[in-house]
């Protein structure tokens, strides 16, 4: 199958190269996470975003450093795209005292508050109304920040999604609602969960713009989120964006994937967002094949280094177990 060529963009060459590097970094983090779990070196569960890197990186590149992000359980990529220090992020993933959340949160609750990343959420749609509140706070404090609220297709059927969209719309809050439609909510296919397609049509119920874009096209994601962010910043209110993509791995660590076929997975793997982007950069002579390989290698070295840091980090002190509940 032929993969559509990416469209040229307003991004500079160095911005594009940095975006490719971030996508490789996310992939390398996720692959390492998968491996660490398989080896029994981390416990619990995790939700990997392999195959969805263009959404995190395209959206992240459209934000300014002091913009806010609130995301969902499949959130490693967003955290990296918002500029997290990978060492502290890996330490959190491994439950260490040096982790971004002091080992209390783990994979599902990674946050990086200093960088405006207000946290992943274990509750489907749980972060959406909070993003509305952050938008309200930005508006009331007359700031020019934007709030990016990221969630999966599953969240779009929770009641609180609708309540949040409505509030953001009536108050014209600076929120960008971004749905990563990766085709499934655990085992529930989008086709069976919704009477309406594409999902962005739901925006019309709140009289806000709704757009559906190819979530494996990093430029399309970037361009759409950038426009929505400008709208938000200029006081015109929220936008709902649906990025169509695919999750390559199982939902979490207990998934036998009986609800989909290998052929379907292979079809989507052929649309690998990283390969597409790398090919574009080579075709447009912004990078050579060796240059791409160096970037991939550097990303994987960064993750290895983060793992060394995390492993050398101390466990949280059991004597601090009661701390952190109240301010």
């Amino acid at each position, binding site marked *: 199958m032929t993969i559509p060529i990416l469209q040229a963009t307003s991004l500079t060459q160095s911005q594009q190269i940095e975006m490719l590097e971030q996508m490789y970094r996310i992939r390398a983090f996720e692959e390492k996470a998968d491996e660490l779990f398989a080896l029994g070196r981390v*416990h*619990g*569960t995790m939700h990997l975003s392999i195959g969805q890197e263009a959404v995190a990186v395209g959206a992240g590149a459209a934000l300014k450093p002091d913009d806010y992000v609130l995301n969902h359980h499949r959130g490693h990529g967003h955290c990296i795209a918002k500029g997290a220090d990978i060492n502290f992020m890996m330490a959190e993933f491994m439950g260490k005292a040096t982790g971004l959340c002091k080992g209390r949160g*783990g994979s599902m609750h990674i946050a990086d508050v200093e960088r405006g990343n207000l946290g992943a*959420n274990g509750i489907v749609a749980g972060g959406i109304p909070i993003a509305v509140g952050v938008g309200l706070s930005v508006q009331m404090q007359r700031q020019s920040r934007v709030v990016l609220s990221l969630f999966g297709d*599953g969240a779009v059927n929770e009641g609180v999604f609708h309540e949040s969209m409505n509030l953001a719309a009536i108050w014209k809050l600076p929120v960008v609602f971004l749905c990563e439609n990766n085709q499934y909510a655990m085992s*529930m296919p989008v086709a069976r969960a919704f009477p309406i397609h594409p999902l962005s049509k739901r925006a019309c119920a709140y009289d806000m713009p709704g757009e559906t874009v190819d979530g494996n096209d990093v430029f399309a994601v970037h361009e759409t989120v950038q426009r929505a962010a400008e709208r938000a910043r200029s006081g015109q209110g929220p936008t709902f964006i649906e990025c169509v993509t695919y999750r390559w791995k199982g939902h979490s660590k207990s*998934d036998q994937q009986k*609800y989909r076929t290998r052929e379907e997975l292979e079809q989507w793997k052929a649309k690998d967002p990283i390969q597409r982007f790398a090919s574009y950069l080579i075709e447009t002579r912004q990078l050579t094949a060796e240059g791409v390989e160096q970037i991939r290698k550097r990303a994987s070295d960064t993750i290895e280094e983060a793992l060394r840091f995390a492993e050398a980090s101390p466990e949280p002190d059991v004597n601090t177990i009661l701390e952190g509940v109240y301010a």
Partner: protein
Amino acid sequence: MREITFAEAIREALRLEMRRDSRVFLIGEDIGVYGGAFGVTIGLLEEFGTERVRDTPISEAAITGTCIGAAITGMRPVMEIQFMDFIALAMEQLVLQAAKMRFMLGGKVSVPMVLRTPAGSGTGAAAQHSESLEAWFVHIPGLKVVMPSTPHDAKGLLLASMRDNNPVIFVEHKLLYKTKGSVPEDDYEVPLGVAEVKRPGRDVTIVATSIMIPRALSAATKLAAEGIEVEVVDPRTLKPLDTDTISASVSKTGRVLIVHEACKTGGIGGELAAQIAESDALFYLKAPIKRLAGLDIPIPYNRTLERHAVPQEENIVEAVRDLMAAG
């Protein structure tokens, strides 16, 4: 007798009742082809089809209300909340509707529904996937609360719950799913409101719930080697509560340790202690009533902290020794 796991015992009860009573149907997230997050409903879709094993989008409030509506008009729904934490999203329908509908309507309807849900910590799932919220429901008139600790009780209590004409919250500890025990193949009920002495003893009574029963039983074996004979009582249902069996045991031993996983403050242990203190058992006490429960913190991700957050076997052993030393 045949030994099966706790999860298999629950599945067997569901299957038996669905074969016997065509009004019974299952509804919840990922209960069909996925078989539920913990595999409890595996195979039921194949036998009963998509109408009676009904996968839903992620919409806990609406699932709960749907069950209420079906229950008051001739059906007998059994819903699953994928993790007990998410019951928070169903609270309005459970507490303000299901629990009081019969009362408000002057007894003209009944709400025969069961809400099954996996609870508890110990899987590394962190603060939003590890809750033990049973005490919330004990506080609500109109609801019943069931918390089995063995495969035998799980099957018998679930059959009784599905035949009860009231909303029943059926709490399944995740760490119990793989535990094995003898379970009769035929149809039997364990009645709601009847506690069981799981081990007789003369010196101390332990009243424990759910996962704390196996921990109390192994603690009792250890303590027996020191000459301390522990009696272990499992209330099995928190509402209705069999206070007679509990106070009879405490009157006999003169010492009582109450053990549960949920946070101590506001937990079911407070109610159990009050029931004991209000009964004649108070006159037989040789030492003050003692509670051992979860720390008053959300469940941390880090493995060591997670373990320390809730009572373990060694904590039970120690608490019993303290109780013996106290009088």
